[in-house]
């Protein structure tokens, strides 16, 4: 066994990605939505790493670093909004804040 073929890694990434996506679409609770978001980001990072190590270039990992900063920034803002949602609307249901329509 001389190593992991790249497309296996990418398949793993896409599985994780679609799972995160499904979670995003299914759950109405804001917390779960944010968590699925994290999974998708993580899957993307995995794909970067897989690519980078396959070609033997450090760009993959550097890019992963950026993915993580992005995830951190996004998570913090997301959670702040979550708190506001809970405090103002007394619920975590994303459908409650759907007045921007029509």
């Amino acid at each position, binding site marked *: 066994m001389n190593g992991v073929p790249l497309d296996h890694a990418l398949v793993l990434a896409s599985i994780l990605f679609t799972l995160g*996506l499904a979670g*995003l*679409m299914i759950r109405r609770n804001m917390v779960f939505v944010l968590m699925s978001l994290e999974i998708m980001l993580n899957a993307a990072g995995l794909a970067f790493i897989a690519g980078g190590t396959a070609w033997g270039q450090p760009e993959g990992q550097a890019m992963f670093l950026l993915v993580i900063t992005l995830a951190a920034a996004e998570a913090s803002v997301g959670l702040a909004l979550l708190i506001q949602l809970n405090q103002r609307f007394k619920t975590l249901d994303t*459908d409650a804040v759907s007045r*921007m*329509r029509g």
Partner: protein
Amino acid sequence: MSFLLPLTFLLPLAGTLLLSLSRGRLGERASAAIGTASVGLSALATAALIAGYLEAPERQVVTLWTWVSVGDFQPTLGLALDGLSLTLLGVITGVGLLIHLFAAWYMRGESGITRFYAYMNLFVFSMVLLVLGDNLLLLFLGWEGVGLCSYLLIGYYYRTAANGWAAFKAFIVTRVGDVFLAIGLFLLFRELGTLNIAQLLERAPQLWAEGAPTVELAALLLLGGALGKSAQLPLHTWLADAMAGPTPVSALIHAATMVTAGVYLIARMHELFLLAPDVLLLTGVIGALTLLAAGFAALAQTDIKRVLAYSTMSQIGYMFLALGAGAFDAAIFHLMTHAFFKALLFLSAGAVIVSCHHEQDMRRLGGLWRKLPLAYAGFVVGGAALAALPLVTAGFYSKDEILWQALAAGHGGLLVAGLVGAFLTSIYTLRLIIKTFHGEAKSDNARHAEAGQGLAHGVPLIVLMVLSTFLGAWLTPPLAGVLPDPHEGSAGWHTALEIVASLVALGGLALAAWLFLRRRKWLAEQTSQGWGARLWRWWHHAWGFDTAYDRGLVRPYWRTVHALRSDRVDGLFGLVAIMVRMTHLGLSWTQTGKLRFYGLSMVGGATLVILVLALVR
């Protein structure tokens, strides 16, 4: 000599311009004076032209300037004078002058006299142009100008809407005829490349053999134009309503000049018509049919002017009959004499109407012959000429000439129609005179009628009376070189026909006298019940043509106008606006505000794109 020719039409034009630009500053007498003077001078110029022509009878052409010159379309403003146009010119300016004079008396006290004389001068100007025009486009200019003036003059009393609509109807019906004439012009120009009448008639025989389809079509179209203007059968419904205008107008336009324009056109283009024998025969047939239809219709009229209008229609039917029989000079001779006695009848009728305070209905007139001696004399002399009383009246010679030419040319049917027409004419003429002048006065208008005074009233009537007698018949029009010479026939047959014609005329008069003097009561009850009444009403509405046209053409047109009033086609483009609004509503439904729905649609879109990319490449 050549400056006289343009003078004949420039003078009336000057009169019109003077009167119309005066902006109401001219009084009644001044405008009557200007109007009559301009036509009088023009008559003087015509007299000089006639004298000059009689010495040296050759065609004069005076070209003012080329109207348009584009490629070979070169119509010029040229005036051509020969025997035919001279005769017409004489009639127009002569009779025109007398009518202008009479109008001074007739229109006294009316408002807007300046406007009246401006239109009358404009009419004489257009009619002279029509007669003198040497190319068809100039003739068309006169043709339409005359139509417009007849519209303006019929609608002179514009305050009552009915007169306005009568004028409107007259113009539209004649305009239909003008369109046929225009299409004829287009056809002639395309085929012969010129509009100049002389060149046209020269090239026509070279290009077409007798009876060729194009020349038949061209002649038919010209005939269509003539029918419209001369109020012959299919396009005749406007003449009876045209009586809404003042009586001098009816005398000038609807008796002497405009209605004879059609006869002049066919006489002027006779070479073309000779090339199309079927159309010529058609002309004769139409003339005969109009002759009879108008004759019967005149029998059942109650308004003096309408009786005279139908009698004009039937006399022009005579002229068309003469043209159809190829007797062009007999038609023009009858045109001249008819102008005299019909103008006399109309002016006398005008005198009666004014004297009886604008009462036109015969049933309320009567017993006037002692109160209005001059009008009565005018009616008697004019009526006699109309009924063609033998030897004494001008009408006899001209009508007899037509009947003889019809016989000599072998058109038996036309001859019979002519004789029946003569019989009808004598009946309705005597009926008119008896009902208007004899018996007792049936209304106070008639009782307090006072005779018209003054020269303007008397002179025209007397002059026309003289011209309506056999003296008028001496003025044989100088048509020697211009129109083809008449058919020859044995003198015996000629005298036999004269005797038959005069017997028919006298018989008609006797029958009318017997009916309307002795058997008035029997006649009244005959025409008031059963088939008599229906027949009387049918003739009263001139065989129902008018109602047929109204229901068949006019009413559907107005229905479509009201149907399309709000511009349906433009409404079509309103649909575009509605579609835009609908797409807006459709798309705004997708903005539900729910986060998950957006996620779902994004994923769906992404999958779709990836699928398409994957499959496509």
